[in-house]
């Protein structure tokens, strides 16, 4: 169940400067754990102490904001593209 994850610049120090990485996970929540396995430290940047995504970070699955899907329970399929984007942009 490999998905492609787009990593924003501020997090690329955890991915050896890679802008995209391949990762496994049946849901966004599982993907977060898998990301932490391969890039230790990254999950604490994405989630607060209770494990919820931080308010200034948005996740998209195939260009759709997961808040319009099933949040952190959003199911992932092999080949999906997950984009992690800082919320503060635009306007």
């Amino acid at each position, binding site marked *: 169940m490999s998905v492609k994850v787009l990593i924003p610049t501020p997090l690329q120090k955890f991915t050896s400067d890679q802008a995209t990485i391949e990762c496994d996970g049946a849901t966004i929540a599982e993907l977060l754990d898998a990301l932490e396995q391969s890039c230790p430290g990254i999950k604490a940047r994405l989630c607060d102490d209770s494990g919820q995504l*931080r308010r200034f970070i948005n996740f998209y699955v195939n260009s759709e904001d997961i808040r319009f899907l099933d949040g952190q329970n959003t199911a992932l399929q092999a080949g999906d593209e997950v984009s992690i984007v800082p919320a503060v942009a635009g306007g």
Partner: protein
Amino acid sequence: MTQAIQASTTQTAATFSALRCKECSAEYELKAIHVCEFCFGPLEVVYDYSALRRTVTRESIQAGPNSIWRYRSFLPVASDRPIDVGTGMTPLVKTNRLARRLGLKNLYIKNDAVNMPTLSFKDRVVSVALTRARELGFTTVSCASTGNLANSTAAIAAHAGLDCCVFIPADLEAGKVLGTLIYGPTVMAVQGNYDQVNRLCSEVANTHGWGFVNINLRPYYSEGSKTLGYEVAEQLGWQLPDHIVAPLASGSLFTKIYKGFQEFIKVGLVDDKAVRFSGAQAEGCSPIAQAFREGRDFINPVKPNTVAKSIAIGNPADGVYALDVARKTNGNIESVNDAEIIDGIKLLAETEGIFTETAGGTTIAVLKKLVEAGKIDPDETTVAYITGNGLKTQEAVQGCIGEPFTIEPKLDSFERALERSQTLDRLEWQQVLV
């Protein structure tokens, strides 16, 4: 006509020293970065206000150029020669007929429909962003835009000799597309709404090394909106209004007007005063108004469906901060439907001779709604911010304002038409051959 087309030559020491996270206060160097590495909060420019207090006076500002650069000490640029295309110092109009119609006594319009060079408030933020982009060594500038920002970035990049690539939703009004293409940038019309354009641009910004005015240059860019606060304070005779009403898209403009007023208080240029901040959204894209109404301190994103494309941001970056400003100043955030927005455009045009676009129609319609609900005191000095020009969104009012009489070049044809004009409802005039 402004006389400020040449760059200011005044030498001023830089008054800003770092970027600081608005959430966790982590500090960063003054580079092209826009969010905190730790919590992803927005970065803000840090100024030395005690130095500003010592060096800036009303007189020193008044001796500056007739443009936003008279406030240069409060803007995050180091250059001696900022890009000055005459942006800012737009009219603050004391309204008579609109005020009377609404039942207000002291209503002003800050008219950025005639801002230079591209007829919207965006020229303010872009002048700052491109000056800073040049200082940081960028040769290509870019943006995600609902139209006005694309116009402004393309025009000012052309003036400054910077390469330019802009991203817009594919369904924008013709005037906004044409008003970008004319300056010769690369234009990407993205098949999606603004929020999708914005996400795409965030991804592009990760990989292309361009200066995106509203992404990696956003801490500098957004500061340009403070000048809408400074100018109103100066134009009111160095005092603050009681109440302002402004459109909300990302929420940035709203929060920066607030910041502008606070800075002027902090450095002693105006007396301290509580100013109420009220925001205007279109019902078809009103995530901030919904949160305000429901007492939430977080924003649920929406998918925009409104005639007011220039403010159709379903996922507003500064939404939570706009909520905070409205609440702590005892203001309101209200929304109006598309028909009310068109009526707002017509009302401003018919009473004050100002043709605004849909964002301005939204602002006027919300102003009217707040007055009718008793949420604006008739005695309050109220300023409504008109941020864009109606000639760019002609589709919005087409079919709602009637057509000319078509007459023969004969006196009796004119007389018959004149009689009909006085007896027929305006919309019945359409394409009448008399």
